[in-house]
């Protein structure tokens, strides 16, 4: 066991789970988490290989080291699960999230929201005389800050994808 983290410290971990793209597989993974009392902080899923029929599920969870070890072992135990990688533990990774952020406002509010979007490199993907929808990609933390600032201007709605992540470097999963 890893000794630089105390056994009772709760840490956030990002798992990347490659699964057979078959009916019920997401339910199996989510059911495992709820059935055993593990947290899901974020979850994304999509097919990544239509030839082999694989989907990838990215799950952000938190727990003590022993709970994180259990989560990994329990995920690996599921029959349709092909590979599990703990991106937090196994090395460095890139983590990104996308958000669509709707802001309402006229006059100065429009100008302020555009300036803020520029600062965060967000794109306008829809606009009306009294609203914008911005698309922003970045770390969850960046998204939090962008949405937080928009709240002062006229935030009316947000949709977020949840985190997708991949290991840095040349190796395959």
């Amino acid at each position, binding site marked *: 066991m890893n000794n630089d983290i105390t056994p009772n410290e709760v840490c956030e971990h990002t798992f990347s789970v490659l699964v057979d793209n078959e009916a019920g597989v997401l339910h199996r993974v989510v059911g495992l988490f709820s059935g055993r009392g593990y947290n899901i902080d974020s979850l994304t899923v999509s097919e990544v290989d239509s030839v082999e029929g694989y989907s990838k599920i990215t799950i952000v969870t938190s727990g003590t080291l022993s709970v994180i070890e259990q989560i990994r*072992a329990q995920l690996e135990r599921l029959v349709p699960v092909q590979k599990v990688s703990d991106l937090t533990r196994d090395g460095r990774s890139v983590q990104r999230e996308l958000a669509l952020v709707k802001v309402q406002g006229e006059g100065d509010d429009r100008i302020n929201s555009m300036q803020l979007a520029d600062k965060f490199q967000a794109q306008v993907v829809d606009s009306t005389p009294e609203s914008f929808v911005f698309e922003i990609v970045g770390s969850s933390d960046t998204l939090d800050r962008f949405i937080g600032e928009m709240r002062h201007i006229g935030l009316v709605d947000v949709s977020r994808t949840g985190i997708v992540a991949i290991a840095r470097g040349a190796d395959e999963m």
Partner: protein
Amino acid sequence: MSKKLYTGGEIILKALGDQGVDVIFGYPGGVTLPLYDKIYQQNKVRHILVGHEQGGVHAAEGYARSTGKPGVVLATSGPGATNTVTGLVDALMDSIPLVCLTGQVVSNLIGNDAFQEADTTGITRAATKHNYLVHSTDDLARLIHEAFYVATHGRPGPVLIDIPKDVILGTGLYLMPEDVQPRNYNPKIRGDREKIEDAIQLLAAAKKPIIYVGGGVINSGQKACQLATQLVRMTGYPCTTTLMALGAFPASDPQFVGMPGMHGTYEANMAMHQCDVMFNIGARFDDRVTGKVGSFSPGSKKIHVDIDPSSLNKTIVADIGIIGDAGSVLEDMIRLWDEKQPTINTAAIKSWWNEIEKWRGVRCLSYDQGEKIIKPQFALENLRKLIQGSDFYVTTDVGQHQMWAAQFLHFDKPNRWMTSGGLGTMGYGVPAALGVQVAHPESTVVCVTSEGSLMMNIQEMDTIAKYQLPVKIFNLNNKVLGMIRQWQELFYDNHESECDLSGGPDFIGLAEAFGFKAIQVTDPDEVCSGIEKMLTTKGPVFLNIEVDRNENVFPMIPAGAPHNEIVLGPNQNLKTVDDKSNVMA
């Protein structure tokens, strides 16, 4: 691969036949009618018509545990499928390989709240190791073969295949088992050599070792049990086997110290608590074994061998964790041990045995028979004496009688003891005995039960009688839910809340109505002759023994207490457990 087309029903029976299935336990229904029509037209796979689908699953479990082969169940859609759920979870908890086939409404009605429709794969997802919904007759053979592979590989468990009626009626190609590439599910069988060498070193240097054998050794097969026995004997170390592993090491061997845990022997629990090296092979540190986790065997280094990686470090952190099949790891271990010839500290082992013999000398299982009322322990001790040496199998239900049976019946061979360990399913015993007897028609099969559990699947007595299976039901009738009463006496100020069964039926009359020969025993002097009569009477026999209502199971480690706080008998006061919330866990 032949290009011949078969109906779904034919494919199912062909696949079962090619998987070596000779018997299935089932109950027909609307959507499985076309399959039953094919069952009618063949005689390769025998169908046992049970009284209830839950009974069918337990019967298949009994079959599987006594043969080492997967058990097969067939149920219809809706209520047929939901009735299997308790049995499936039971098999999941005890790692029993099963394949459960359920019918489903026709594909285009799925999701329409059709008659007898239930979301079977949704409901059983957490009740099975894996499950499938079949979409096309062409997939049927492949998925059935895959289900057998998944059920029997790695840590065994139940696998369910949900088959819509149109898939049974439709036609498709058949594939032989060898033509099916099992998917990417390859559990690790062989343990890491380096870790096995470390384990040998640790084990050989031990001064107070214990070998703790679990159900995984029985699941691995008879050879694994022989190897475990060989290891225990070549080291000269004490051996304890869990409730699931009784018989994996011979109970008659002086190196056997009994079962560990809540109702385990004093010597086994003290040895587990005081040992310096614990070698756990195929057990999962169940809470009924460990008691209070923080105080479990505090001074020992632990070696843990398990085929399921999620078992390692789940409750107890292992110093050496070996992922692999029990039989394979034992084989490597014995071979490497022979090569290395490590020196065992014989003087230390001798003084360890002296300590253990002192604990054994406490005779923790002693009881006082008295003259009038039959003690359940006395009845079981006599059963042991009278079946010892014969070819026998025992199933139990759940509760006090189960613990007494585990303490007082001795098993020298694996696969002879069938009990619901993990889930603790009342109603397991009678149908499990039915399944065992179907698999072993010539052997003596005794179901040790008590009236609370018996009533939960009593309809299977009809199945037993209908097929004239010579099952012997050994009913320890105390007219109360004994384990509930025991806990209420010990932890709830003797408030006997809703545990009284004294108004129950006339069991003799009931047994006879089912077609059993019934024997009544009320006097201690009749116990021996009653059991003899039960064993020598042909066909199904029901022995009703009226036993002491107020007897408690001892030794007992209260839930949440450490092993050294074991309570030996009624005269020893229970130590108060600090955390009250832990008491009824």
